[in-house]
């Protein structure tokens, strides 16, 4: 069974976005903060793709001054993608976000992000985009 990691702090509200993917037999695991996404990746579970929103909360529960440098990052989603690219280079990366500009797009391409998807998006469009990659694997 294929599995994707969806990093989205408003996932409860946007859950219907993932219904078609799930219907296609893909398991969607949700992380609502930067920290929880990192934890899920580090737990060793295999993910066939990650879908990341650029605007993410850091995660209150693990507040620590040691991490303050990371918290200062304007878009924690970008920080997360950078880490994934460095530590899990085989996981295809997707961005699903509302905020985008040319500079951010260029940065994301350089990081090796496969596709940048802009909200609002229809659930089937998102499914097709993700399945394209997943079926390749």
């Amino acid at each position: 069974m294929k599995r994707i990691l969806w990093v989205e702090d408003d996932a409860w509200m946007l859950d219907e976005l993932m219904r078609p993917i799930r219907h296609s037999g893909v398991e969607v695991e949700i992380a609502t903060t930067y920290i929880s996404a990192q934890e899920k990746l580090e737990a060793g579970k295999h993910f066939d793709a990650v879908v990341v929103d650029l605007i993410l909360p850091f995660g209150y529960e693990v507040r620590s001054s040691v991490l303050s440098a990371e918290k200062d990052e304007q878009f924690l989603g970008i920080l997360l993608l950078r880490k994934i690219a460095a530590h899990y280079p085989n996981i295809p990366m997707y961005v699903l976000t509302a905020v985008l500009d040319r500079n951010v797009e260029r940065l994301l391409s350089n990081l090796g992000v496969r596709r940048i998807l802009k909200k609002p998006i229809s659930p089937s469009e998102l499914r097709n985009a993700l399945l394209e990659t997943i079926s390749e694997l």
Partner: protein
Amino acid sequence: MKVFVAHSITDNQFVVNLTNLLRENGHDVFVPGEMLSSGNILSQISAAIRSADVLVAVITSSNPNILYELGLAAGAGIPTLIIARASEQLPANLASVPYVQLTGDMVRDVQVAFRRAKDLEGLSPRRVTEFKSAEAALRAATRDPSVLESFSPAELERLLAELFKERGYKVESTESTRDAGIDFVLKPRGNRGLVLVQVKKVGRQSRVSVETVRMLSSTVTALSAHLGMIVATSGFTASALALAAETPIVLHSVEGVLAARSEGDLLKHEDLDIVDQTLDDSGRAFELQEKRIEKLEAINLQQQEELAELNEATRLAEAKFKEAEERYKQAVCALDLKEQQVTELEAAKNRVELTGKAEAMTRLYHELLLPVQAIVANAHNLREAEALGLSSEDRAHNAEQVIAQAVRLGLQLQNAILSVSEGEKIYKPTRFSLRDLILEIIALFADEARAKEITLTLRADSPDDFIITGDRSKLRIAIYNVVANAVKYSFSSTQIELRIQSETDRLRVFIENLGIGVAPDEAEHIFKLGYRGTSAKDVSRVGSGMGLYIARQLINAHSGKIELQSSQGTNRGHRTVFEITLPRHLQESLG
């Protein structure tokens, strides 16, 4: 002329040379050493001296006889020339006798002695007696140029001095006046001041120059005399005459002096008619001039003082000006610096504002987009319900979601509009139940609360309907914003409690949650536009920082108030209470 040379034997060579020079020039010289005839030598010497025109006495301490010869000459009125070495101590009563000091240069000393002896010739009593009187001699000289020619300048001076004496003037000659080039000083009868007299023996074709007049004029001033007089054997230049007319100087020919019948004639210019006037005028002119000079000197002194003061003032002014200039420069520098700082500050402020606005707009967009995305997803799946295998329950839920998110989107849009609209807002007051409004708002958070495992409860302290007058939609968004904040920043598995209290003329609403809380130093900032607490950023990246700001604006417009009542730390997080107070009835128009 006849010269008696009195000498000692040791001075022989000098005497021989002088005697030879005098004789070469046709003068008769008596030398005692040559008088070797028998008889009384003293009487011979005495006779010789009395018949001489000039006595030349070569004095040495080894020859006291000479003092005898000097005494004889003085008694006979014979002009005398003393010749002595510098080392020679001469008797004090000889101090006024003409004197040649020997230098040791024989040729020069002989020449000087010869010239001085010749100068004394005019003083010879023999020459004066020859003409019986000075006046006779001078009249002869004016008639016969050869007679005039025979008088030496010194002789002519002496004759004129004698003439004035003969006419009853006091005549004096002092060392100081002689040094100043004055031949003698005339004291007019009646003692009216001093007249300085210069006698000029000039060639027949020559004229006394203006320079002579000018110099005498200066001397008159310098010696505080009243008048200067030049007596010349010939005429004066035109400019000399012109200058004399302007200065206290009278010019005379020898003939003019002889022709003067009165003192007035003498003390005025020859061509002037008015008698005593000249002296008076001169005196007055002199006095006036003196006064003028005094005045001028006083003015000059005053001017100098004023100039000094002016210089000092100028110096001070310059210093002050420089100081002022320096201060000005510093001020300009400071101003420049300040302007630069202000400019930088403004630029920084603009940057912050721009960044702040851009950030706020980005967040606002994100917030608006959320319900849009939710609606799009739900509506899409509803359309694809068959293919996706949605149950009827799923479909109902999706439809509810679409409606709820649409309402939410409406509220967000209202927030957005309120946040960007400046100035007056339009309020439409109605009477409604605040309790019902709060229940409506709670319903909007049902899904989110469920997802976060949060329960939202409303507790009313009375069975009242909590009727209030106000703009319902404005109060809805105000309370919605406060509740949304509570939901957003609550920890999962907690309870958000809303309480509504009824008082006589007002209603109070408390919103209490357990979550990240508000730090004490942030309490006063949370109602500001665009402000987000540091903890808030950790929990949710979403949040425009406008909610509480808009809530306070709208509540204030209803003459109500919203406050952070408390935010206390517990072992499960911060218990935070917001309090909203609203008047039941509007006291005045809304806004």
